[in-house]
C-alpha cells in the first residue's frame, strides 16, 4: 500500500479497524473527536459496533462488557475523559480482559485547554485507577508510528490480557502527514466466528459457567491474585520494551523525550550534532514497560541526561530511577499546552553542556 496524507486521529481509528476491531464505544472530546467520528462512519459500513456513550464513564464500562466477551474493543478520549475512565480501567485490569484505549492528551490540569500536552503520564503510566496494576503504554511520535502501535496494541492486549494505552497528544492527533496503513485483518462475523477465548462470556451452553469479576474477598486470595498480576507485569517488562535511540555511543549528553516532545527534541539533537556537540537522543516508545535497562546502560557511558517533556516533569522520575544517581538527570519542560521549539531545547542543551558535571 502507498503512503497517503493522513490525520493522526483518523489514522489511528483506521489502523484499529484494520487490526480487527469489532466494537468501539466513545464520547466526544477535543482533540480526539475525529477518531470517534471516523468510527461513526466506518464501523457501521463494515457491520461492526459503534456506539456514542453518554459519558466516558459509560464508554469504558461498555468496553468492559464487550471485552468480557473476548472481542476486539476499544475507546478513545483526551485527558479529562481519561481521568473519568480510570475506575473502569482498574476493573478491566483486575478482570484481565483485553482492550485498547487511545488517550490524545491535552493541556491540564482541570479543563485546561485543547492544545497538545503530556500531563497524563502519571495517571496512565503509573496505573491510574485504584489498586496495583499496569497497562502497557505505547507513545507514538509520528502519524506512522501511531498507526503501527495502534495496530500492534490489540495483539499485545490479547497476549497478556491487559489494557493497552496508545498515549499520544493533540499534536499527533491533529497532525496530517504521509503514512501507510496496514492491511485489513479478517474479523469475526456471524457464520465466521473467531474461536472465543477460553475465559469469554458467550453463554454457558454445554460448558461450566464463566465469570468475569474483579472481586477477591479474602485478603489471602487478593494477595495471590495481585502476585499473579505482578508476575505478568514483570514478564511484560522482559519482553515488550520499545525505544528509539540515535547517536548515543559517544554522547556526553543524552536528551530523553517521548511522543511529540521527543520528536521536537530529536530535531534539537541533530542541530547540536551539526555544530559538533556530542549529544545523543533517546525516545522511550513503551512507557510501561519503561526502557530502564537500556537507560541504565547509557548511564555508564554518558555524562548526563536532559529530559524534555510537555509537563512539569513526570517521565523524568522514571529516568532518574533507571539511572540511580550515577549521572545527573536534568529537566526541561513546557506546560499547559505549550509545545517547545527545537531552539529552546538546543539552548538548554548548550546551557547544560556549559555547566560543570558532578557525576
Amino acid at each position: 500500500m502507498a503512503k497517503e496524507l493522513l490525520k493522526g486521529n483518523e489514522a489511528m481509528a483506521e489502523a484499529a479497524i484494520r487490526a480487527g476491531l469489532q466494537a468501539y464505544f466513545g464520547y466526544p472530546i477535543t482533540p480526539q473527536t475525529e477518531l470517534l467520528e471516523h468510527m461513526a462512519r466506518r464501523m457501521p459500513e463494515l457491520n461492526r459496533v459503534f456506539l456514542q456513550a453518554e459519558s466516558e464513564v459509560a464508554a469504558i464500562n461498555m468496553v468492559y462488557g464487550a471485552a468480557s466477551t473476548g472481542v476486539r474493543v476499544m475507546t478513545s478520549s483526551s485527558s479529562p475523559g481519561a481521568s473519568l475512565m480510570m475506575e473502569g480501567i482498574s476493573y478491566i485490569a483486575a478482570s484481565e480482559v483485553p482492550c485498547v484505549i487511545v488517550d490524545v492528551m491535552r493541556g491540564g490540569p482541570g479543563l485546561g485547554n485543547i492544545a497538545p500536552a503530556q500531563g497524563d503520564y502519571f495517571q496512565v503510566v503509573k496505573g491510574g485507577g485504584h489498586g496495583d496494576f499496569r497497562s502497557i503504554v505505547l507513545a507514538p511520535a509520528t502519524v506512522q508510528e501511531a498507526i503501527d502501535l495502534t495496530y500492534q496494541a490489540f495483539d499485545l492486549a490479547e497476549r497478556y490480557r491487559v489494557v493497552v494505552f496508545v498515549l499520544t497528544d493533540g499534536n499527533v492527533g491533529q497532525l496530517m502527514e504521509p503514512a501507510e496503513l496496514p492491511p485489513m485483518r479478517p474479523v469475526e462475523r456471524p457464520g465466521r466466528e473467531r474461536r472465543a477465548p477460553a475465559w469469554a462470556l458467550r453463554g454457558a451452553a454445554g460448558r461450566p459457567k464463566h465469570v468475569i469479576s474483579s472481586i477477591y474477598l479474602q485478603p489471602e486470595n487478593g494477595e495471590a491474585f495481585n502476585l499473579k498480576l505482578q508476575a505478568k507485569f514483570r514478564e511484560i517488562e522482559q519482553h515488550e520494551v520499545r525505544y528509539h535511540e540515535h547517536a548515543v555511543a559517544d554522547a556526553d549528553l543524552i536528551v530523553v523525550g517521548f511522543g511529540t516532545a521527543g520528536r521536537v527534541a530529536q530535531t534539537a539533537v541533530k542541530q547540536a550534532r551539526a555544530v559538533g556537540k556530542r549529544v545523543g537522543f533517546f525516545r522511550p516508545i513503551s512507557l510501561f514497560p519503561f526502557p530502564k535497562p537500556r537507560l541504565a546502560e547509557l548511564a555508564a557511558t554518558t555524562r548526563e541526561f536532559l529530559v524534555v517533556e510537555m509537563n512539569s516533569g513526570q517521565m523524568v522520575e522514571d529516568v532518574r530511577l533507571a539511572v540511580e544517581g550515577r549521572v545527573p538527570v536534568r529537566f526541561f519542560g513546557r506546560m499547559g499546552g505549550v509545545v517547545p521549539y527545537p531552539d529552546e531545547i538546543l539552548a538548554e542543551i548548550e546551557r547544560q553542556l556549559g555547566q560543570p558535571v558532578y557525576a
Partner: protein
Amino acid sequence: MLAEEEIVYARPKALSGVHTHYCPGCTHGVAHRLVAEVIDELGIAGQTIGVAPVGCAVFAYNYFDLDFAEAAHGRAPAMATGIKRVLPEHVVFTYQGDGDMAAIGLSEITHAAARGENLTVIFINNAIYGMTGGQMAPTSLPGQKTTSSPLGRDIETTGMPLHMAEMLAGIPGSAYVVRRSLHNVKEINRAKKAIRRAFQVQLAGWGFALVELLSSCPTNWGLSATGALHWVATHMLPAYPLGDYKVRPEVEALR
C-alpha cells in the same frame, strides 16, 4: 403411570447449588429464584449472560449457574450494553439495587432506556443501602430512619424519593416497565409473570424492559422477617404503587 414420589418443587437449574449470603428474611433469594425459574422455563440458560451490581447482590454471579459479569457500582447497564451490542443474539440482564441504579448509576440506566437497549433489568427496591449497612438511598421514604439519616429522611434537605419505574416509563426507548412486590405469595406470582414478560420482550427484540421489585431488608430496617414484609405492605406500597407503567402494544399481546 404416576410414580409414588414425584418431585414437585426443586431448585431451578439456572441457580447454583450454593448457600447465599443473604440475611434471613431478605427477598433477594425470592427474586433470584423467580429469575432462574423464568430462564429455565424459557430454555435460555445457555445463551444468557447476567451482570451483577455492587451492593447486596454483588455475589449474584455465585448464585446463578450462568455466564456472569460483575460490574462496577452503577455501571451494570453500560457493561450489559457492551455485551449485548457485540452478542445481539444472547440474552443479557442486569440485577441491580436502588443505590446502584437510582443513585450512582442513574445516568447509565437512563441512557440504556433512552437508547431502547435490548436488555432486561431486575431492579430491587428496598429503600435502603443494604451492603454498606443501612444508609439512606434515593428511594428511602420521607422520615425513614437510616444510619445516614438517623433522625429520619428530611425531605427539606434530601428531597423526595425517586420513582424509577415511573421515570423510566416516561422515556420513549423503554418497552416494558412495571413495579411488582415480593411481600406475599400473590404478589410473588405476579412478579414472576412480569419477569417472564421482561425476558420475552428482549427475546422479541422490542427494547428496554425493567421490573422493579419492592423488597424487604429486615436487617437494616431493624425488623423481623415477617415484620419487614408487613412494612413493605404498610409503608412501601403507598409510596410506590404497584402497576404497569409502560407496556407497549406489542408487549400487551404477550402471554
